[in-house]
């Protein structure tokens, strides 16, 4: 007998006992009443007994009915429990099938994503540079004379994991360039304030074309930021083949406006004292000496720097570079210290065909072969570069800085830039050539992410200083920029920046201080 039956029986017995007790009590009460009444007769007692028998029979019937009902319930309960077990088993099977299907779906999605994944980012800017004087020479060659809306980056990433150890990455930048780029600027030279002499003509790139149906379009350009394979046999030994971002500093690899702190690019990036990207081979990796330390290294071998390096090399010398970076992190504190060294040769040349002819305009048989080519080197130099970067983070505070030193030794120097002889008080009509130089540039940014209790929004004010000096022989071209701004991220994929800055050229030739602002919205997708 199960527990439920026992409870039922006890209940029934309790009811029965209560009824009997009540009846007995009633009988007792009757007896008490009868105590003063005349003694009952045998007939009356017999009647009472008969009544009691009826009551008992009735209760027994009820008991039997209840027991029958209980048995029915037990059967139903057992059936329900069986059904319950069956449903549970079906549920387990269904859950398992669901998990299998989910795994298949996600795996297929992942496989598709591994085959080709598309993502990217884009920015939208409103900016202007404002010199102290309206006719500042700094306006020469810059499109930011007037406040302007500007889309600077439309970058798409194509990534693929061909296998667990082989992946590819292509980052393509769509740009409206070269539309509007200045090709040449004339100079109107006043000698002793009189008789202006005009040298050169103004020209600007136009990409405007008219379609056969008559609509006019301004064509843009496509720039391949990087395109490489990555082979990963071990984390400490990986191989990258193709065009890759030079592994130096902080900004160069961050580079996306959704990640970088300020809307104003550092000078060392603008001037590309270190090549932004190289085409060749990179061996890299990382090791973990302890839980809090990461050591990263990279060795680069590439075409180096020359006018066509992204496509092909113009000499047999390959540029070599080495990168080392140490990262220490513990709790809220993180320190990263890196360095990059580079040595390469820049070569630019033109070609000409040499033809050996006779006086009768035939090929001269005295020269074998009579048709030859000759390379005419127009510019050649060796460059040695050292770069260092430092990043310190503690809670919301971040200090980041980079410094680049670049030494150029010319073998075949090019002509000096157009206005440089004037700065050097030389005659502009006399051709001068570039000399060996040491250039320097560095920046530092200090920021603090406010400890606001916002869901996913971060607000980070920052200050920064930036400088460059392109030539240690002449100090007239040293520039220092100070900036102040705020970086707001309402979510992981959106960044809003506002930056104000002041530039101070060392030379008065440029007309004093400059100020400017840059407002930027960047979205990744």
């Amino acid at each position, binding site marked *: 007998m199960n527990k439920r039956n026992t409870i039922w029986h006890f209940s029934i017995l309790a009811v029965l006992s209560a009824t009997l007790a009540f009846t007995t009590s009633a009988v007792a009460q009757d007896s008490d009443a009868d105590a003063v009444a005349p003694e009952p007769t045998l007939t009356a007692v017999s009647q009472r007994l008969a009544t009691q028998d009826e009551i008992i029979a009735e209760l027994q019937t009820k008991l039997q009915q209840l027991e029958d009902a209980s048995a029915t319930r037990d059967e139903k309960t057992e059936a329900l429990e069986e059904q319950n077990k069956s449903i549970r088993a079906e549920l387990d099977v269904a859950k398992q099938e669901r998990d299998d299907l989910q795994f298949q779906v996600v795996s297929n999605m992942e496989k598709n994503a591994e085959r080709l994944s598309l993502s990217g980012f884009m920015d939208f800017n409103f900016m202007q540079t404002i010199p102290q004087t309206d006719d500042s020479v700094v306006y020469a060659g810059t499109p930011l004379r007037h406040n302007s809306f500007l889309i600077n980056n439309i970058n798409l990433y194509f990534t693929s994991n061909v296998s*667990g150890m082989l992946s590819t990455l292509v980052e393509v930048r769509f740009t409206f360039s070269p539309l509007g780029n200045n090709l040449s600027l004339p100079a109107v030279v006043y000698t002793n304030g009189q008789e202006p002499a005009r040298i050169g003509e103004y020209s600007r790139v136009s990409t405007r074309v008219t379609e056969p149906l008559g609509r006019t379009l301004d064509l843009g350009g496509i720039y391949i930021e990087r395109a490489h394979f990555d082979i990963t046999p071990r984390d400490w030994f990986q191989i990258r083949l193709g065009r890759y971002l030079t592994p130096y500093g902080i900004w160069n690899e961050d580079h996306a406006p959704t990640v970088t702190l300020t809307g104003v690019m550092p000078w060392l990036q603008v001037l590309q004292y270190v090549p932004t990207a190289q085409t060749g081979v990179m061996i890299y990796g990382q090791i973990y000496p302890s839980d809090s330390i990461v050591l990263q290294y990279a060795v680069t071998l590439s075409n180096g720097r020359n006018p066509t390096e992204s496509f092909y090399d113009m000499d047999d010398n390959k540029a070599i570079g080495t990168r080392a970076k140490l990262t220490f992190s513990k709790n809220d504190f993180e320190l990263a210290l890196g360095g990059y060294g580079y040595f390469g040769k820049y070569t630019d040349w033109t070609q000409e065909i040499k033809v050996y002819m006779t006086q009768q305009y035939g090929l001269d048989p005295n020269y074998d072969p009579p048709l030859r080519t000759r390379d005419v080197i127009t510019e050649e130099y060796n460059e040695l570069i050292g770069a260092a970067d430092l990043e310190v983070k503690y809670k919301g505070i971040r200090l980041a800085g980079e410094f680049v030193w670049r030494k150029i030794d010319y073998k075949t120097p090019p002509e000096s830039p157009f206005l440089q002889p004037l700065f050097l008080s030389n005659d502009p009509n006399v051709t001068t050539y570039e000399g060996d130089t040491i250039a320097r540039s560095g920046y530092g940014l200090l920021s603090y992410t406010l400890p606001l209790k916002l869901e996913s929004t971060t607000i980070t004010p920052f200050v920064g200083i930036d400088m460059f000096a392109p030539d240690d022989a002449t100090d007239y071209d040293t520039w220092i920029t100070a900036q102040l701004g705020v970086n707001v991220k309402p979510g992981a994929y959106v960044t809003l920046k506002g930056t104000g800055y002041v530039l101070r050229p060392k030379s008065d030739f440029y007309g004093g201080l400059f100020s400017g602002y840059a407002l930027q919205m960047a979205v990744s997708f």
Partner: protein
Amino acid sequence: MKHNVFFSLPGALLVASLIVLYSQSVVLCESPDQLVVIVNRNFKVDSLSVAEVRRIFKKEITVYKGVAVRPIHAPSGSPLRNQFLSQVMGMSSTAEEKYWEEAKVKKGVSPPIQLSNTVRAVFAAPGAISYCYRKEFNPTVAKIILSL
């Protein structure tokens, strides 16, 4: 006669305290809601540190002892995922989202896949590494390499 510390009153208290602490630690270690990091049974690794697991789930480590590792997350926003983020990754879900946004832009790396039944996923995927509650762990389909 030399006084035996284990038969003195302080000694007895010390032993009793140790027993209590040990029993409590056993209870804590074996708690059904304890998080365990699990791998596919074919993965030739017996244990990993918290830092190593963190690096795998950040995809800083992509190959471990010659095997391409495949981290699998519990669904975003689930209590299991949040507990893992807190105990192993040391970041909030918002910070994690920002981390992957930056990783995507810098390195073209995508976040790990996410599945509701992480144990089964680990069973099905070679090189897979994930996590679950101890009560959900099934030793026939995966093995534990870290208990938190």
